[in-house]
C-alpha cells in the first residue's frame, strides 16, 4: 500500500491458548483519515488495539508507526510516539477528579521528579499552570467544564465517555485509537460524538482509528473501513463497499446471501 502510511501493521498474529484471536492481519492507516474496524463480537477488534498499545505481545508480525518500531517499545512508551487510546470499558481513575484525570493525560509531556515534587519548587508550580492551560483547551473543546471538579465515581456514563476521550486528547496524540466511542450512548449522544470526532480530525489534525458497532457513526465519519471476523481480515474499503460486501454480510448475518 502507500509508502506514506502512518501506522502500518503487517501479518499480525496472536494466540490465546489454542485460539487465534488475530491471525495474519495487515493494514495501513494513512495520515488524516478516519479508519474504522468493524466485526462481530469476539472478532479480535479490541485485541488489535491492545496489540498496538503493547498490552499484548504478538506471536508474529510487525507494527510500525512513522519511524518507530512499536514492538521494540514497552507499553508506557507508546504514548510518546503520539498514539493515545480509549478503552471499551472506560478505564478512568475512579477516585480522582475529572481535572486530575485529564492532568494524568498530560503525563507524557510533564517531568515527574519526586524530590522536586515534595518541595513543590517554583519550576514545578510553573509547569503545573502551563499544563493546566492545555487541559482547559480540551475541556472547552469537549464541553465538560461543568464536571471539572467532580469525582469520576459520581459521573453518569455518558460524561465518563467524554472524559475518557478528553484524557486521551490531553496527551496531544497524532493518532487516536478509539475503542467503541459510541457504545452505551443514546443516539443524540452518539451524534455528538460524531461531531466531536470530525472536529478532532479537522481542527487538531489527529488521525483516528476506531472500533465501532454503530454503523451510522461509521458510515458518517469513516473514510475507510476494515471488516474482520474470527481474527481474520475480510475486506478493507469505503463504508459503502464494506456494506455491500458479501463476505461481510455473511459474517454478520450468518447466511449465504
Amino acid at each position, binding site marked *: 500500500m502507500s509508502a506514506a502510511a502512518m501506522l502500518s501493521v503487517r501479518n499480525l498474529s496472536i494466540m490465546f491458548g489454542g485460539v487465534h484471536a488475530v491471525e495474519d492481519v495487515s493494514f495501513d492507516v494513512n495520515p488524516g483519515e478516519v479508519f474504522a474496524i468493524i466485526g462481530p463480537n469476539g472478532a479480535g477488534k479490541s485485541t488489535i488495539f491492545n496489540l498496538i498499545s503493547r498490552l499484548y505481545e504478538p506471536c508474529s508480525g510487525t507494527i510500525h508507526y512513522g519511524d518507530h518500531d512499536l514492538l521494540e517499545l514497552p507499553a508506557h512508551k507508546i*504514548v510518546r510516539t503520539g498514539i493515545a*487510546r480509549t478503552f471499551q*470499558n472506560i478505564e478512568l481513575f475512579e*477516585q*480522582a477528579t475529572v481535572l486530575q484525570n485529564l492532568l*494524568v493525560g*498530560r503525563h507524557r509531556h510533564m517531568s515527574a521528579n519526586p524530590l522536586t515534587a515534595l518541595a513543590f519548587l517554583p519550576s514545578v508550580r510553573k509547569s503545573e499552570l502551563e499544563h493546566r492551560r492545555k487541559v482547559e483547551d480540551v475541556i472547552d473543546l469537549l464541553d465538560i467544564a461543568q464536571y471539572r471538579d467532580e469525582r469520576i465515581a*459520581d459521573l453518569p456514563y455518558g460524561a465518563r465517555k467524554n472524559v475518557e476521550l478528553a*484524557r486521551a486528547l490531553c496527551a496531544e496524540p497524532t493518532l487516536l485509537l478509539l475503542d467503541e466511542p459510541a457504545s452505551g450512548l443514546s443516539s443524540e449522544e452518539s451524534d455528538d460524538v460524531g461531531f466531536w470526532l470530525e472536529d478532532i480530525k479537522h481542527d487538531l489534525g489527529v488521525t483516528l482509528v476506531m472500533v465501532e458497532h454503530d454503523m451510522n457513526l461509521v458510515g458518517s465519519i469513516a473514510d475507510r473501513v476494515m471488516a474482520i471476523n474470527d481474527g481474520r481480515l475480510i475486506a478493507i474499503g469505503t463504508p459503502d463497499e464494506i456494506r455491500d460486501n458479501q463476505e461481510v454480510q455473511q459474517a454478520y448475518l450468518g447466511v449465504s446471501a
Partner: protein
Amino acid sequence: MQVLFKTCYEDDIRFLAKTGEKVRVGLVIAALLAAPLWLQNYYLAELGLLLVYAIAGIGLMILTGYTGQVSFGHAAFLGIGAYCHSILISHGVPFSVSVILTTAFSAAIGMALGRSASRMHGFYLAIATLAFLILVETLLGEWTSMTGGYAGLKVPALVVFGMPLKAVWQQYYLDLFFVLIVVMAAANLFRTSTGRSFLAVRDSELSARSLGVNVEWVKIQSFGVSAAITGLAGVLLAHHLHYLSPEVFNVLESLKLMLMIVVGGLGSILGAIFGAILISLLPISISFLKDVLPPGIGQQAGLEPLLFGLIIVLFIVFEPLGIYGRWMKLRYFFETFPYCRKSSFVRQKSYLRTERLR
C-alpha cells in the same frame, strides 16, 4: 454555604481554598503550638507520640491509600529508622546528619523492596511485605554486634545542633516541626504529576500505562517515599522509646499502622492524622474504662485488641471511607444546611469492568 469563585488556576493549586478550612487549620496549628501551656507532661508526651504515629501513618497512606499497594511490613521501616538513627548517633554522628542519612537509607531499602514487589498484586504483595517485616525483625534480633540483639539497644540522649533537648516540651516541638514538614511535603506531592501518577496506578494500571506512566517505576518511587517518611517516624519514635528492642517492630505494630489508615480513611492525609488520633486515644480511654467497668470485664486480658478489632469491623461495615468520610459528610451537612438529605451520599452504581486486562 460558601461558594468558591475561582478566578485563576492558582486557586486549584492552593492547599486551603475556603475560609473555613484556613480557620480550622490555623486553630489546630495554634492549639498544637500552645499545647505545652495547657497540657500536663504526661499528656504532652502522648501528644508527641501521636504526632510521630501521624508521620508513620502518612508514610503508609502514600503507599497504600494513594498508590494502592498494600504493605503489612511498614513496622520494619519504623524499626530500620529507629535502629539506624540510634546506631549512627551513638557513633557520634550529629542528629541533623543522622536524620538525613537515616531517611535516605530507609528510602533506599524501600525502593529495593518496591523493586521486587512492583510486579505483585493483592495477597501476594501483602505476604511479600509481611515476609520482609519478619526478615527485618529477625535481622535486628540476630545481628547482635550492631543492634544489641534481643537484649535491646539504648537510644542516646536527644541532642539537636549541640543543644540537649531534655524537657518533654522540647522534644514535643521537634516532633511538631517534623509533622508540619511531612504534611506539607505529602500535600505538595499530590498536586504534582508524580503524585497523580500514584493515583493513576491505584485506580487503573492499564490506562496509567497507556498514558505513559511507567507503572513499575511509580511503585518503586512510592515505596521509596513511603519508606523514607516512615523511617523518619522511626527516628522520632526511638527518642520516645529510649530503649529499642526488635519485638517492638513486629507484625502487631504493622497492623496498628494499617488499622490507623483504614479507620482514618484511605486516600487522604487527614485520614492518617485521624487514625493516629484514634489509636493514641484508644489506650487512654480503655484505661479509663477499666476503672469504670466491673472487674470481671475490665481486668480481662486482651480488652484492647478486642476493642481495636471491633472498631475496625464497625468501620468497614458502616463507614468504609473511615473517619475522614464521616468528617466530609459532617462538613457537607453544615455547609449546605438545611439541604442535606440522606440520599446525598448514595453512590451511583459503579459500571462493570469486564474484560479487564491484568
